């Protein structure tokens, strides 16, 4: 892995805000994610999770505020950020008419791997990700679980310092989800920082720290224990439901 650009935290946002017309999608978000952390972003549909990730990946300019990822400003130093991050979108971003191997080779090359080094890295990566048996199958014909695993493979072949996963396990069976989380922990153990969004509470409980978003606002932040204590609920799921009720009540 390339040496970290700076020593500090991997993601820092200061008053990050995004407005679509009259809709506030993200409201003055202050977040810090530390190196090697598995950080969960929770919130109901439309709470601004994807928008936050898109701003951090440089896909969307913030309306206000600023953010640094791996030590670089996401707006002014977008090029530097891009080579050091991986992004797995809600839609996976795979080419259906390319095979699993071709997809990985394509993204690896775009990320700057070439020749022998790339081919060796891909072999190693395919073995680690357990993609060997499907390497020559067209991505479009893979089942949901395999697609998800391939998408993760494409986002990590270049060994990014920071990995953004937007609902990576939506619509995937429990066994595939368990394997997926094993891969995430393996990546984190090697120093990759991970930001993951999810609607599954069991997955939320696997994160080291969590942030709750509701209508674009950060309404809860901390470890699983801190959050359950803070809201006086037995589990994360109870917290989630209680928050959503409160939120709906406030806007009813």
């Amino acid at each position, binding site marked *: 892995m390339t040496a970290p650009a700076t020593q500090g935290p991997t993601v820092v946002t200061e008053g990050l805000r995004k407005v679509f017309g009259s809709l506030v999608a993200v409201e003055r978000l202050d977040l810090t994610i530390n190196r090697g952390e598995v950080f969960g972003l929770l919130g109901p549909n439309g709470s601004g999770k994807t928008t936050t990730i898109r701003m951090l*990946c*440089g*896909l969307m*300019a913030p309306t206000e505020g600023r953010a640094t990822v791996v030590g670089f400003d996401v707006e002014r130093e977008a*090029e530097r950020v*891009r*080579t050091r*991050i991986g*992004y797995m*979108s*809600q*839609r*996976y*971003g*795979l*080419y*259906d*008419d*390319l095979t699993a191997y*071709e997809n990985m*080779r*394509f*993204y690896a*090359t*775009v*990320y*700057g791997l*070439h020749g022998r080094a790339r081919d060796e890295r891909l072999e190693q990566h395919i073995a680690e990700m357990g993609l060997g048996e499907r390497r020559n199958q067209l991505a479009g014909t893979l089942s949901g679980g395999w697609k998800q695993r391939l998408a993760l493979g494409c986002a990590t072949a270049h060994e990014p310092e920071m990995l953004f996963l937007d609902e990576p396990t939506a619509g995937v069976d429990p066994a595939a989800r368990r394997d997926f989380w094993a891969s995430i922990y393996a990546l984190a153990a090697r120093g990759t920082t991970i930001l993951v969004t999810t609607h599954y509470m069991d997955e939320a409980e696997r994160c080291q720290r969590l942030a709750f978003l509701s209508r674009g606002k950060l309404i809860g932040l901390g470890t699983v224990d801190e959050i359950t204590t803070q809201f006086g609920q037995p589990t994360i799921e109870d917290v989630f439901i209680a928050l959503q009720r409160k939120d709906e009540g406030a806007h009813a």
Partner: protein
Amino acid sequence: MSDTPRFVDRLRYSRFWPMLWKEFIQIRRDRLTLGMILVLPAAQLLLFGYAIQTDVRHLPTVVLDESRTSESRALVTTLMNSGVFDPAGEVADRATARRALDAGTANAALVIPPEYGREVAAGRTATVQMLVDAADPQTAGAAISGAQLGAQARATQIIAERVSLANPLDMRVRPLYNPAQRSAVFIVPGVIGVLLTITLTLITATAIVRERERGTLEQLIVTPIGKTSLMLGKLVPFVIVGYVQMTVVLTMGWVFFRVPIVGSLPLLYLLTIPFIIASLGVGLLISTVARSQAQAMQLSFFFMLPNILLSGYLFPRMSMPLPAQFVGLALPLTYYLKILRGLMLKGTGFADLWRPTGSLVVLAVLLFTISVRRFHKTIE
């Protein structure tokens, strides 16, 4: 000179290459696109080359000769020799002639009245009648002018014989550039232009829109691939495809229709570049407007229509109403057709092609700049 190796390295490791590689795999695997690329040139060429004959000749013609004189037979011979009419038999009466026209077995019927021979011999104006199936205006036009020319020719002969004089005037029309007046010769260069338009707008636009639809464009933007590599990787494959199509049509045009390339072939390929850039601009523009592949396809066909009708591909622009001519001026194909026909049929050199070339270059720069701007905005 330390710049040279760095440049070579930059080129070798450019992110344009994986893009190009991926694009060619996709083109190869996409049956619809591949079909359009391979079958379309052949189909267009054969369709327009064989089926659509804009020159109307050999109209089956029945003859009702009630005069039955050497005079009347001479008239029939003159008319049939023109090539416009072909004998389709003699009929006994007008009703039979009408029936042949109704049934479509004949497009024209020549009726020579009984007194024809007498009138001519007496030096009076003789009247003959030509019945024409005018349902198709093109056929009718050809038949009418063919009949008039034939009659004039015969009239001149009669006068000359009567006063035993040499023909006072002999107008010899020598058709240049397309001596046999075959429509294939006129159409084949056009097919190249139309094909390139389809490939470079329709196929390019749908290929870009597909990336947006499937979410891979978003994925690409997150990678370090630059906007230029992204765009070039997306466009260059279709430029290559376009040139291949052009070569195929040129070859087939020669093999099947003996369509010549009188002018300079390298110049033809060179002057195709501004046309390609202009068309890619249109394709890119469509991709920024269309929200789905279906929309991209509709918009592309919408763009094809004026190209086919107003560029001079099928109908001469001179004979169009003024507003239609103005619309034609905004189409890259209008200028490219002049270049194509000039180079292929007339052997025109660059000295005489600078006008259409200049217009095309202006149009290309304009279209491409606008669309690249828009494209950059949509991926931000």
